[in-house]
């Protein structure tokens, strides 16, 4: 083929600023093939987790991803609680639900902002991230941190939601709801945005089944799966809410799923604040019985899966982590085929890929870590100096 060309995207993504490599094979403007390569930032969390105690691992898995930094520890503690049949107090269940839903709102707004940025609509980007800030403020108030909330522990949660915080949360929710409503309408009515998103990057229902995709990517392709409905964890079975799904499978459907889910999340948090009973927020856990357990939580990007096998000591024998993006990214192999290069960047981003979730390893050589944190820092300084020598004067 004479007019077949390769367009590389990455290994450092020009827009998402994350390490991955998409090799687009194109004929003219049309994408006819895609090869995906990962592994630029694999940190070995599963390996490290096998050397840590059950008290330490929630803080480790929290750092898999800065965006879904509640989903991973939540799935992990659910797995341990499943393995050792540990009961969790009801108030803790509600607090977990509230944090989990706040995380969903902030993550979906983040994606929406990025999607706007990708199609060159920076107003959407500014709006979405501006109102996402309100959610981060709530996190700071409730957990003490804007990210890495450190709320989950085996047997309960670490911090309570105080009565005086509840009116503040409700007030912020009202503002988030009004603003999200405002720009949901603005986005879905905008003919330019619709032209860029509609019938682009279609993932058919059969392809979605074959690639076993999860979360909004699956729900936009007509597969009604959501861990919160199917296998209710936390307090989801006590709350009235709707699962959002569409049949089209295009980027617009994915955007609609995420936008409408923000409103469902707000609805869930409001009910939780009303129904939340008084009582303890954790059960004391002295030892983890031998056994195996599966924990699953619906992260903003889909089902997070953690498997833990315990032998009765304080360190798990095996801890398996599966982030949703691991299943979702590979579905791009079919979703971008036949579209133009301009659409490809958007299609690739439409699954809301989270590269840090997919990569979990550090560089080791002959049993020793090849780079220490300090060395990496020095390498980074060296590179900055090379790129911007004038800064160093």
């Amino acid at each position: 083929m004479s007019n077949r060309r390769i367009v590389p995207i990455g290994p450092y993504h020009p827009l998402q600023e994350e390490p991955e490599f998409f090799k687009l094979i194109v004929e003219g403007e049309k994408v006819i093939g895609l090869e995906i390569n990962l592994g630029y930032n694999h940190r070995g969390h599963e390996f490290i987790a096998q050397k840590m105690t059950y008290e330490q691992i929630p803080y480790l898995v929290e750092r898999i991803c800065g965006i879904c930094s509640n989903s991973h520890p939540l799935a992990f503690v659910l797995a341990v609680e499943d393995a050792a049949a540990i009961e969790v107090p009801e108030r803790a269940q509600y607090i977990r639900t509230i944090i989990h839903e706040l995380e969903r709102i902030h993550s979906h707004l983040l994606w929406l902002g990025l999607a706007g940025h990708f199609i060159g609509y920076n107003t959407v980007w500014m709006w979405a991230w501006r109102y996402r800030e309100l959610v981060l403020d709530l996190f700071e108030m409730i957990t003490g941190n804007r990210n890495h909330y450190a709320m989950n522990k085996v047997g309960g949660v670490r911090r309570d939601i105080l009565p005086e915080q509840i009116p503040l949360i409700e007030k912020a929710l009202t503002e988030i709801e009004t603003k999200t409503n405002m720009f949901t309408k603005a986005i879905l009515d905008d003919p330019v945005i619709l032209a860029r998103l509609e019938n682009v990057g279609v993932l058919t229902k059969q392809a979605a089944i074959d690639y076993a995709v999860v979360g909004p990517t699956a729900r936009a392709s007509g597969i009604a799966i959501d861990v919160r409905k199917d296998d209710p964890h936390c307090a989801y079975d006590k709350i009235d809410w709707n699962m959002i799904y569409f049949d089209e499978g295009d980027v617009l459907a994915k955007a609609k799923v995420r936008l409408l889910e923000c409103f469902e999340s707000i609805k869930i948090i409001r009910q939780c604040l009303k129904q939340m009973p008084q009582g303890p927020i954790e059960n004391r856990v002295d030892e983890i019985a031998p056994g195996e357990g599966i924990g699953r939580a619906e992260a903003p990007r889909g089902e997070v899966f953690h498997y833990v096998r315990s032998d009765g000591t304080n360190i798990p024998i095996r801890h398996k982590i599966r982030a949703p993006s691991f299943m979702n990214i590979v579905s791009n192999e079919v979703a971008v085929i036949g579209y133009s290069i301009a659409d490809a960047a958007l299609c690739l981003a439409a699954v809301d890929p989270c590269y840090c979730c997919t990569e979990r390893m550090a560089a080791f050589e002959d049993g020793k870590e090849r780079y220490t944190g300090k060395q990496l820092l020095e390498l980074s300084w060296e590179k900055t100096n090379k790129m911007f020598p004038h800064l160093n004067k």
Partner: protein
Amino acid sequence: MKQEAIKLQEEFLVKFPKAKVFKHNERRLYISVTKEQIFDVAAFLYKEKHLRLSIATGIDTREGFEILYHFSYDKIGTYFTIKTLLPKDNPKIKSLAPLYTAANWIEREMHELLGIDFEGHPNLKPLLTSDDWPEEKYPLRRDYE
């Protein structure tokens, strides 16, 4: 346990009578089969019963390499985990990738981190480790230093 799960379990045992079922709780079932049966089991669960392969876990145990295929029955929120054991000296198993696209990356990950050979896999290139990662070095094995 939900009716659907009981029904599926019964049908499974009719088809694979030698399988051992262990019920951990209402929503978590573990079923042990031999490694020769894995492909047929996966074909039955995926093609006939439309279960979703969520992920597979590989574990280096004293007896050998244990592989757990976690199948999710989404309609009733139940996990059917299919277990099988491979010998330590020759960890080989038939690949599910030709049957089920989703198994492609799952098996690639397990191949490079645990050194399991998947026979018939279309592309077993390393996915996550760096390009200069030494061959025959598997970080999730017990003897890895």
